[in-house]
């Protein structure tokens, strides 16, 4: 039989119907101010880590809202927790806390061994 493995491509389309919002719900429970993010990018512009790496705080927020736990668990490690993002946010969101919460929940997951079901 022919080997058709060369034909397999992964879809990049964001599929809202298969969207895992558990991490988002956790963050919103403790930091409801995150609801008001308008993706302006003020945080990214001032970000200490972002000036040294390709870390993008605005995208952290987006990925959180799109249930992309896998991407988050890697990216989040680049944050230096300087807190400048929180200072500049026009919606007064405690972004530093949002990132801390993401980190905390993900490390809890790792110990809880839930990883498999979370697609990290």
């Amino acid at each position, binding site marked *: 039989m*022919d080997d*058709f493995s*060369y034909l397999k*491509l992964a*879809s*990049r*389309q964001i599929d809202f119907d298969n969207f895992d919002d558990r991490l988002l719900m956790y963050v919103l429970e403790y930091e409801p101010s995150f609801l008001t993010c308008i993706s302006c990018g003020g945080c990214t512009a001032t970000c200490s880590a972002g000036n040294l790496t390709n870390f993008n705080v605005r995208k952290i927020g987006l990925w959180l809202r799109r249930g992309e736990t896998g991407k988050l668990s890697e990216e989040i490690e680049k944050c230096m927790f300087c807190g400048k993002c929180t200072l500049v946010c026009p919606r007064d969101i405690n972004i530093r806390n949002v990132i801390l919460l993401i980190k905390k929940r993900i490390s809890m997951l790792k110990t809880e061994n839930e990883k498999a079901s979370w697609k990290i």
Partner: protein
Amino acid sequence: MVVKLYAQLKEDVRLAEGLQACMNCGICTAICPAAEYYEYDPRSIAITVQSGNEEKIAALLKSDTIWYCGQCMSCKTRCPRNNCPGLIISVLRKLSQETGAFTESRMGRQQYLIMKTIGANILRFGYCVHPTVLKPENHPEQGPVWKWVFENKHDVYDSVGANLDGDGPGAMRKIAETDLSELLKIFKVSNGIKLYETIEHFSQIKAVKMGLVDQNGGADMEKYTQYLLQEV
């Protein structure tokens, strides 16, 4: 004097047709078949070209990005500003080939393969596609029926009333030498042959750079072809 890349893009009449003014809405990316399966975003292509930024355009010309578009032109139908990102891509690809930048990306380098197959078919058969060159081993997805057609082509085409390699009209008829020579002359006067030669020229340079050389140190294009076929 170095002509700016953006100025060169604008020389092609298709750029004005493809890019009037983009307002960054993403309606094109939403339904783009390539955006779903590749790291590709036609909206950002339009925005980059619109910016006229030389560095960014130069980077695009060397990138895989411009080779992801499948030219379905679905973007044209939807754009609220009557732009056509697919047409912008055609212009970028043209410049990428003319400047040799295409050999800097994996997807771009494939132009050599296409020129050697479809490009050669056009001048050899007068058709883009011909059953003698559609070998089942290179087209396993074509399935057992095509394999049967290929292996019994004269009988099969004959049985359905086609005129494979025959004189006169009909499906898959042989194109007369006089017509083929007109095609070749058209390719000569309209820069078609020049483009084939350009692709060949830059591909050879790339092959040498990659160490794919023959005993005399010249480009070994057979090795290069094999390399491209494997490259993923």
